[in-house]
């Protein structure tokens, strides 16, 4: 049932409606072109040989047998990649060491994770490329590997990058270590505040590595011409960051590289880094032909960046009346084999929903012999907030308080300061909590059967701003086009068209949105961080307003009146003023748009924005009813409701869809998804059979309740939507299982064997089984 969303008082004409997306027909007919659908008459197929070991010295690579196979046109290894200095540079994922950037896509003298690319082949057909890759003989000296970040911090742990010394609280250490960095946020006096607490909960948690699980594997086709110009067709979350990442590795100017972002089959953060593009480009340079590379599903799991496994300690103190007084947490994150930026974001989020004047959090980025972690939808927040929300639920239980009332009592509001120092502008957390408490789901009686229970949890993401560009142009018939560089992952282009349509007084279907390549529009940062509708929408808005300003002038010219006497109302331009009579007929945008040629020529405008100020954070509150089978340990979700403040829902269907999608990813993370490694540190479940993502038969309907507390930083009040939804499910389901069984599983995933074991260890298994039969 469609919820009536969007503040009716705003009188929006287009915003809040649900038009069919402009790219929809091509997607339901199979016409839409994704990266793997690109094909050139003279293309070669690539195949990558990857390390079977989690940590090894590469002693030699013998490509002679492979090169001798007819149809094999080129083979490259680390020796063929550009040699970059050991210095840091800005990249799409923060500051990176240049040498690491190259070695991540093609190993240097060591394999640092199972799946690390060792060599790549270009051949005339795909089967031949794989056969040739398998014919490359590599001599390895296997080294001890470390997978778990806690193990990696032990003094005798194998060193992943021998030369790393850590930055701890601002000071560089002399000792080689796997600890890349410790980030601390602190406010107030935590230890003193704990002494005033009347109830303290202190717990440890661990979570396993999980993958974004996009259905379309990474792919790239590259053409490196003899004049040095490179074109890349790829599945990426941003053409510009992809170009920057690839050009940095190839050591060519950006003006020589064109990236064409094809339709993308899911990303969730995992398609921000480059993997195949530089390899395809180097193979293309070696052969003079376009080279196409597609990752297999096994390659995806063992070689692309997942989300960190973690070990988390949380200590929370409160008064007996429920007021939170102090919190102190240590978040240890698996970083993969190179330094990354994502440990700190968990620390930015963990306490964010709550008023905590005295709080401290330390986040540790730790090297491991696994792929460098990549973003996964609110990176690092789900793990951290799961741990915090479990502790808070325990406190609420001990105090016999309603868990949502308890949170409302401690909820942040405008003007409160986050532990990392940012002050909240207008936010909608309290409204979201209230909407959850007023929901049908929450007002209904919790399930009361044996082993049934209800859980709630909260989620937060600060949302990103970053930079975007857009061009809005009027067509000769008065319709318009919107060109942006924002890759459309989930229907954003429709929302961007709707924003332009709202400004210009057109219908959504009268505005044609397109996703441009890097030649065709100004710099635009990734589609990620829940920033597209917000930031690119701001750029679109700005450009549309500039177009409209010009339209006002054209109307004035046509009517021969001062421009101040032209007004726009109810989708049309009117004359309102003393200089002429009242008999000037209004013109719709369409009508005015057809007269532009004779009033001065075509009208278009571009805008580039850096939208970091004015970002609106998104809060979510989820409710789940579950039933646990105490004999098998299997959890069934009976009912699930997700409530979220989205600011303004431009296209409510896609807002609901983002929420539902994030919820189901969170359910998978909570119940079944995990990387399994053997005792040599090699991932063994590298396919969808044993990396168990929820199927349609595993989840119930996901009810969504959209709350709109408009973000004052955006012309239409937009807040980012996409990431917050994945955060609450971990805590929600954990809390529901705790309420259903009396047992808290502080280790994710809460898979059936772990549930059975926990019930047995807590001594409740027998009575729960008896009660269920």
């Amino acid at each position: 049932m469609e919820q009536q969303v969007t503040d009716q008082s705003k009188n929006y004409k287009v915003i809040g409606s649900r038009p069919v997306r402009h790219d929809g027909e091509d997607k339901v007919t199979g016409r839409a072109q994704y990266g793997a659908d690109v094909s050139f008459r003279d293309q070669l197929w690539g195949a990558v040989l990857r390390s079977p070991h989690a940590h090894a010295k590469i002693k030699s690579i013998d490509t002679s047998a492979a090169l001798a196979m007819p149809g094999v046109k080129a083979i490259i290894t680390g020796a063929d990649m550009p040699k970059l200095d050991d210095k840091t540079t800005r990249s799409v994922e923060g500051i990176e060491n240049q040498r690491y950037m190259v070695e991540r896509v093609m190993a240097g003298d060591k394999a640092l994770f199972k799946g690390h690319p060792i060599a790549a082949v270009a051949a005339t057909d795909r089967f031949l490329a794989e056969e040739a890759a398998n014919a490359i003989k590599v001599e390895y000296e296997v080294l001890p590997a470390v997978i778990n970040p806690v193990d990696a911090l032990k003094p005798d742990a194998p060193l992943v990058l021998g030369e790393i010394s850590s930055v701890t609280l601002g000071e560089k250490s002399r000792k080689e270590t796997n600890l890349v960095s410790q980030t601390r946020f602190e406010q107030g006096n935590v230890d003193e505040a704990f002494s005033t607490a009347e109830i303290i909960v202190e717990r440890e948690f661990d979570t396993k590595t999980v993958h974004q699980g996009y259905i379309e594997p990474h792919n790239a086709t590259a053409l490196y011409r003899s004049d040095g110009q490179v074109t890349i067709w790829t599945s990426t979350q941003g053409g510009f960051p992809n170009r920057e990442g690839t050009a940095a590795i190839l050591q060519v100017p950006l003006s020589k590289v064109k990236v064409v972002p094809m339709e993308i089959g899911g990303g969730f953060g995992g398609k921000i880094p480059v993997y195949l593009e530089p390899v395809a480009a180097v193979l293309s340079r070696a052969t003079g032909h376009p080279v196409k590379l597609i990752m297999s599903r096994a390659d995806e799991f063992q070689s692309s960046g997942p989300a960190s496994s973690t070990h988390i300690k949380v200590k929370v103190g409160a008064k007996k009346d429920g007021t939170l007084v102090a919190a102190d947490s240590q978040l240890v994150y698996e970083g993969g084999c190179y330094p990354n930026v994502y440990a700190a974001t968990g620390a930015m989020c963990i306490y964010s929903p709550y008023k905590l004047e005295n709080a401290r959090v330390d986040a540790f980025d730790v090297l491991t012999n696994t792929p460098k972690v990549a973003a996964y939808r609110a990176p690092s927040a789900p793990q951290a907030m799961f741990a915090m929300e479990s502790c808070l639920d325990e406190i609420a239980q001990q105090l016999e308080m309603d868990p949502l009332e308890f949170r409302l009592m401690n909820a942040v509001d405008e003007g409160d300061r986050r532990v990392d120092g940012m002050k909240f502008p207008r936010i909608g957390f309290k409204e979201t909590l209230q909407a959850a408490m007023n929901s049908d789901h929450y007002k209904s009686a919790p399930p009361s059967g044996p082993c049934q229970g209800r859980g709630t949890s909260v989620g937060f993401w600060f949302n990103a701003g970053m930079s975007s560009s857009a061009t809005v142009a009027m067509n000769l018939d008065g319709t318009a086009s919107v060109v942006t560089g924002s890759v459309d992952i989930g229907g954003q282009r429709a929302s961007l068209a709707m924003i332009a349509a709202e400004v210009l007084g057109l219908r959504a279907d009268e505005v044609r949105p397109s996703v441009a390549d890097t030649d065709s529009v100004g710099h635009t940062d990734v589609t990620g961080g829940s920033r597209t509708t917000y930031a690119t929408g701001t750029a679109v808005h700005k450009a549309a307003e500039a177009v409209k300003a010009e339209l006002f002038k054209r109307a004035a010219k046509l009517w021969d009146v001062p421009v101040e006497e032209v007004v726009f109302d109810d989708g049309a331009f009117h004359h309102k003023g003393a200089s002429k009579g009242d008999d000037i007929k209004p013109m719709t945008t369409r009508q005015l748009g057809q007269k532009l040629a004779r009033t001065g020529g075509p009208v278009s405008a571009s805008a580039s924005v850096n939208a970091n100020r004015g970002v609106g954070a998104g809060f979510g509150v989820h409710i789940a009813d579950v039933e646990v089978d105490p004999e098998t340990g299997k959890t069934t979700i009976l009912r699930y409701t997700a409530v979220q403040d989205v600011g303004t829902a431009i296209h409510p269907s896609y807002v609901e869809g983002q929420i539902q999608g994030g919820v189901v990813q969170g359910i998978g993370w909570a119940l079944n998804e995990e990387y399994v490694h053997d005792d040599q540190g090699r991932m063994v479940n590298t396919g969808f059979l044993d990396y168990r993502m929820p199927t349609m038969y595993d989840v119930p309907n996901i009810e969504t309740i959209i709350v709109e507390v408009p973000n004052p930083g955006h012309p239409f009040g937009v807040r980012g939507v996409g990431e917050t939804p994945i955060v609450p499910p971990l805590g929600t389901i954990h809390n529901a299982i705790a309420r259903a069984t009396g047992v808290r599983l502080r280790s994710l995933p809460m898979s059936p064997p772990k549930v059975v074991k926990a019930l047995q260890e807590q001594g409740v298994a027998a009575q729960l089984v008896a009660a269920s039969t």
Partner: protein
Amino acid sequence: MKPLEFSAPSSLDEAIKAIAGGGGEVGILAGGTDLIIQMRSGRRRVGQMVDIKKIPELNVLSYDGSKGLRLGAAVACDTLGAYAPAKQHYPALVEGAELIGSTQIQSRASVGGNVCNGSPAADTICALIALEATCVVQGPDGKREIPAKDFMTGPGQTALKPGELLVEFQVPPPAANSSSGYLRFIPRNEMDIAVVSAAAAITLDAGKQTCTAAHIVLGAAAPTPLLVEAAGKALVGTSLDAAALEAAAEASRAAAKPITDMRGTVEYRKHMAGVLTKRAIAMALQRAKGG
């Protein structure tokens, strides 16, 4: 994958000749839902693929009250599932077959392929053993019969000799007042390989009160599917009450010799062997009583 020869013989003799000439790298293609995956991952190197779906003997599907069920090795699971006599008389077998994979897999996967893949986690082998099926096999040296309980000899291994082809299963007609049930445990609701599974075939006396025969078979609990004779013995002569079921479950737990792998631990599999034994018996009992 190395270059591949492909043939689709339309007679059993042609197929056996093709397999014999294949030099040990022959892949026999029914539904391909195991073979193609294994070829792609490099687990199997196949130089010659023989599609057996055109062979009439491998597509037989018939039932009569005196001979029982004849199920050709190439018959797809969804075809078996739609065959009413199989559903009626051998529910455990149909249950197992219909649990293999998704709808898409059901259209292709065959019971024959499921069994020839040699995995003790196969969804059909437990029911075949519990129902005392026979595997009819043919090769260059002629025809022979292998009891289902002897067909799988180790993980990924079967009793087939080089050049032999599984032709059909023969399942004896069910005794009066008997029925069967199969279930498996998987972490999701679909799409997974069994962590542990159990089939139960139960026969009751004329009054439908006392158990006169019982076969309990565990899957994914040992290197091969496990016929737990002690569990069956624990049920015979009883009214299949809670105590009898617990005795059978205990026998299953004791007999199970599972490993720890990415799908389950030894402890969990032993525990579940007991749980599923009871649940499979309950299914079979309810059906045998006419429920």
